[in-house]
């Protein structure tokens, strides 16, 4: 373990941020590199943990790297994976446009990429792009939101980072449902860039300008948690909040009567599927599946929140 780590670090031309570095020789099927955004968001940590566990079960070494949503850092990490001779890259990417070149570079170096969670805007470069059915999931969340709002009232929407397709698609799914109800009135719509702290600050100022809000729908759970903290601090825990992701934090809030609902993305399983497809591709030259695949999401509310653990729904 220590030896591997030293070799790995000495192999790095430029210093990159490593969330964790783990290597195990196992049966020597080679190295799988796992790249995700920051593990500060437990969603991405669940992806990394799920991918790493499955890869090691299948006999691969793994390196787990984080790009912090910085395309330049992601590009350096691709160079690292290429230099290390990775057999495959599992990637939750740092931008639909900016990632295309990096995935192409890996492909040119003979390293297939398997994308999870977020798409890139080109087909035919990655081998697989497995993404949550965000549109379907957003519609589930919006239906629940409309239901608990009793189809009427002022509400706020916090959207994700604009460079991320998932921010747009979730907002689109929300509005395709909510806008059917003329008494649902959106009084503010702002991006909090998926960030908990940013959501806290945005919610504070939105609340000052619009004290008469009844609901809040968020593009992800970290923003829901940040906004919920702001609402609680302002004594407004009456505001009905819906998130998206299915994190344990929001699960606990739902069970405690705080946030009302979220939408589970099966992040852990999704990462495992990506590794399984990578393994099949490495061994047979094909996954046997279309490149882009959607995975349906599941509504989480007080009825089933107790069954949720680390982005997977138990029995």
């Amino acid at each position, binding site marked *: 373990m220590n030896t591997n780590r030293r070799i790995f670090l000495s192999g790095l031309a430029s210093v990159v941020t490593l969330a964790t570095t783990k290597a195990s020789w196992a049966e020597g099927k080679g190295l799988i590199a796992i790249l995700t955004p920051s593990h500060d968001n437990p969603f991405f940590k669940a992806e990394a943990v799920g991918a790493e566990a499955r890869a090691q079960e299948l006999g691969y070494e793994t390196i787990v790297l984080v790009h912090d949503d910085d395309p330049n850092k992601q590009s350096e990490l691709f160079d690292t994976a290429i230099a290390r001779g990775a057999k495959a890259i599992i990637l939750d990417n740092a931008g639909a446009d900016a990632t295309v070149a990096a995935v192409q570079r890996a492909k040119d170096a003979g390293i297939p990429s398997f994308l999870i969670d977020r798409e890139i805007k080109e087909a035919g*470069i990655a081998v697989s792009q497995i993404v949550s059915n965000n549109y*379907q999931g957003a519609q589930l969340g919006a239906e629940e939101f409309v239901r608990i709002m009793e189809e009427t009232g002022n509400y706020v929407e916090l959207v994700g980072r604009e460079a991320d*397709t998932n921010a747009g698609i979730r907002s689109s*799914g929300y509005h395709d449902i909510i806008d*059917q109800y003329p008494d649902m009135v959106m009084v503010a719509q702002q991006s909090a860039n998926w960030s908990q702290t940013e959501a806290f600050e945005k919610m504070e100022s939105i609340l000052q300008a619009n004290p008469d809000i009844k609901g809040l729908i968020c593009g992800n759970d970290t923003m829901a948690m940040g906004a919920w903290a702001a609402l609680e601090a302002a004594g407004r825990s009456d505001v009905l909040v819906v998130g998206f992701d299915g994190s344990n934090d929001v699960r606990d809030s739902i069970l405690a009567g705080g946030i009302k609902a979220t939408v589970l993305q099966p992040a852990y399983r999704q990462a495992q599927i990506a590794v399984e497809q990578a393994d099949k591709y490495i061994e047979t030259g094909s996954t046997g*599946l*279309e490149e882009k*695949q*959607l*995975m349906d999401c599941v509504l989480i509310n007080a009825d089933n929140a107790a069954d949720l653990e680390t982005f997977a729904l138990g029995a």
Partner: protein
Amino acid sequence: MRHSILLTAAAIALLTTMSGCKIVKNPDPNAEGAAPANQTDAERMGIYAREIWDSKVLPAVATHLVPLSDLRSAQALDIDAAGEKHGMRPDGEANPWNFAVAGTGTILEANTKSRAAKLKVDTDADGVPDVIVQLGPVIRGTAIRDAMPFIIFTNFRDQIEFAKLAGGLNAIAHDRLTIPEGDLTGMQVTFEGVFTFKNVTTSPEIVPTKLSFGGQ
């Protein structure tokens, strides 16, 4: 890269006759002969949906059409086998099956005022509705899109474009319907359409591709 794929696809399209051709017309605004680039995703996908409706969507529905009662009998024996035999679904783990079904029944409830108008229909004469027919204009879900074997997510720019295609197909389904005036409750309705299967206890929410109304 994408451009060269498009050109290749265009070249192949020129070399093949259009009937029976499996090539999906790529909706990219930069494609030669495609709509102007200032169209929104929704507009572009709406045009594409109209292009394929009569030539591909309706034939695919006809090919896979199964009487609803037959489907239910098959599902009562084995849900997975019924899906393999009659259903359609995109690649991916645990994607739900979509079915094209035909049936007839009595309208027990008709909500035609709502933007999301729908009929609750009793197809097995037990006095309880067991099918929902979505009339729109707001039609829920992505059943038609997901049932079409020739519509492949990989061929679309991203989920947003793909979602707008589902919306475009739903919109045409609504546009093609002729709904009689007045209260429809008690009337007979005969339908063909597509739905996404959830489970055997949830009434199918059918997006109709053909609808006709009989007497009381």
